[in-house]
């Protein structure tokens, strides 16, 4: 896997959702490089370049993280919290994509620094539209933060 030009990290434990999301993303040809983490721990390892992903570098963060909240091991909120509280990862855009529209999830998600909060529509057409809009915005329209400054700070902190 080429993790250097990673477009999206999809954190999703449900295989159906994973397939549908990937299907939608691929159909719109928005992301060629997608990595799927199946639980919170894996997502954190990936983002913090540790464990199985120790060879990864902070210099090549994903352009977007699509984060589900209900995850095995470490839940989505915890992932969000750790990512957004670490200077090396806090600039990575994280979009919460979940079935829940609970107000408390919305509030805590934004409080922890989520860049966006999307409720997955039940209707697949709408779902595809949503995924398309997200991809278009974060991968095409949005200008990500420069990586160089990040990695320097990150390099110091991790070792």
């Amino acid at each position, binding site marked *: 896997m080429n993790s250097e030009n990673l477009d999206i990290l999809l954190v999703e434990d449900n295989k159906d959702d994973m397939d*549908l999301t990937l299907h939608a993303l691929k159909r719109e040809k928005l992301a060629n490089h997608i990595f799927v983490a199946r639980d919170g721990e894996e997502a954190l390892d990936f983002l913090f370049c540790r464990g199985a992903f120790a060879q990864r570098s902070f210099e090549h963060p994903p352009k977007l993280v699509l984060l589900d909240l*209900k995850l095995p091991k470490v839940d989505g909120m915890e992932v969000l919290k750790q990512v957004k509280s670490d200077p090396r990862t806090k600039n990575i855009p994280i979009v919460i994509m979940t079935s829940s529209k*609970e107000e408390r999830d919305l509030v805590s998600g934004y409080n922890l620094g989520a860049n966006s909060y999307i409720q997955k529509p*039940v209707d*697949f057409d709408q779902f595809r539209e949503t995924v398309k809009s997200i991809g278009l915005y974060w991968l095409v329209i949005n200008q990500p933060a420069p990586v160089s400054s990040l990695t320097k700070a990150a390099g110091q902190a991790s070792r």
Partner: protein
Amino acid sequence: MALVTDSAAVQQIHLPEENRKPEPQIAEHKRIDRSIEARLRGRVTGAFIVAVLLTIFVGFLSWRNARLAADDADWMIHTYAVMDTLELTSKQLIEVETSARTFGLTGQDALRAHYEAAKATIGQHQETLRHLTADNPNQQQRLDMLEPQIRTALEFAEGVVAKRLRLQESPDSRDILESERMMNAVRATAQEIQAEEMRLLSQRTQSTNARRRLTSFIIVAGILVGAVLLALGWLAVNREIDVSAHGREELKVLNASLEQRVEQRTTALQSEIIERQQAKQALARKAEELASSRQALEAQTLMLQSVLDSMTEGLAAVNEQGQFVIWNTAAEKILGMGATDLASPKWTGHYGLFLSDTVTPFPTEELPVLRAIRGDVSTTEMFVRNHRLPQGAWIEVSAGPRKDAHGVICGGVAAFRDITKRKADQREIQKLNDELENRVVQRTAQLETANKELEAFSYSVSHDLRAPLRHISGFSLMLVEEFGSRLDPTAQHYLDRIQSGTKKMGLLVDELLNLARVGRHSLSLRPTKLNSIVTEVTAILEPDTQGRQVEWIIADLPTVECDPILVKQIFQNLLANSLKFTRPRIGAGSSAQAGTHGPEHTVIEISHQVKDGQPVFTVRDNGVGFNMKYVDKLFGVFQRLHSAEEFEGTGIGLVTVQRIVHKHGGRVWAEGEPDKGAAFYFTLGAGNPVELKSTGATAGGQS
């Protein structure tokens, strides 16, 4: 009460006494009149006596002086007579002398006759003189001297005559001288007499004059005095007339007032008599009443006693001095003993009264019945233990001041009951309460847990139920898209049914979650301009108006205190509802003919009016409406008035509206008529209007 009325009656009887005062004015008048009369009588009598005396005196004086004047006149006449006689005597003597001498010289007989005549009268005159001066010895003496001188002169003249006759001789010078000398002597004596008479005359004249002056003076003075007295008398009489006239007037007035008084007095006396009679009657009645009230009192006393004795509550009353005046049977039973004569400080010890800890003696001054004398109303619990009640008992004492008819405290009353059983019950209740409290705490904790579980449930429903639906939807769609060409139309149709089923279920799940969220949602009220919410909602609903002509009539809504998120939900549900049920009103022709207000295009009106000081919001449409007999079903969960084929829906939207309205303390209701339209009304009870604008609806069109 009876006593009070009696004294009032007595007062009434005595009231007229005040009019019985003596009338001193009249007596005074009488006294004054009497003294004036006496003084006046004295004065008038005195003046009268003086006037009489004066008159007598003046009369007497006049009479006497008249007499004296007459005497004086007599005397003057007398004097003049004396002087005349004397002069006549002297003249005759001179005649005699002269005649004698001339005869002597001439011898003429005529002369001698003359002489003889004269000589004869002298004697007469001499006698007259003697007679006239008989009263005056001095003059008599002088006459005694004069008479011889006259005689001598007459003898001499005789001698001359005789000598002529006899001797024819004439008198010689010596004879003449001699005659002269004799004549002179006579003359001298005569003059003396004359002088004396003159002196007497003058003396008498003087005294007469003096007396006349005195008399005149006396008369004048008398007249003056008389006049003055008369004047005084006139004045006095006049004054008396005035006084008596005045007196008569006064008398009249006095009489009148006296009569009036007599009349008044009579009236007063009559009314007094009537009042006395009335009072007598009243007294008689009072006596009757008194007798009957005494009977009533006795009956009441008996009744009171029986009531007091039949009471289960103890009753004790004290007077101001802290002595018991009432002590009923129950009191004796509850406290174990009767009323005591002991002074109040000893009561606590006597009856064995303790504070709630059952060991501290109850402070005497704080005993409710003694506090009542000081004006306090109190209810106290205390513990009683004495030799009659060795087990002790709990009592509750309620005491308050006793007041007399004037509202002045005249003692205290205490009612007390045995609450030993109640105390035990209370302890039991307390125990039960405590247990209950514990149970409540436990149950609350359980409920909280359950609530959390429910929340977790709804959370997982939201998450877990939606996900498989999405999957069904997603994969069925993918099937259609990717393998549709290879499927026969029936299979495609089934896939379409799967699609619409998942859509419906998604909607249902979303709305159920919404409803659940509304229930959990805590109100956060803030002033909210409702027009902005409505604008937001109409924007959200914009896609549903595609291909239709919709006229929004939105009034100027007030700013109210409410939860904007929930109220937005209300409008969203109601407006979506209206849009849905107006769907048959697609409008005349295309949207290019906007502004055509035909009956066929959709009209949704949002307005408000103030009713009972509260804004009532209305959402009205001209849709298919409903029959009012089904109005109760509108707000029931899953209750629908139309088939899903006609109008899709879950039957949850209006329930959600109702729940939000109720959460605000408001009310929601609906009116409708089939094929005419429906109107939904709601209030936001908790959301009192911050600012109420006029209810004049401002139409704001949007399509």
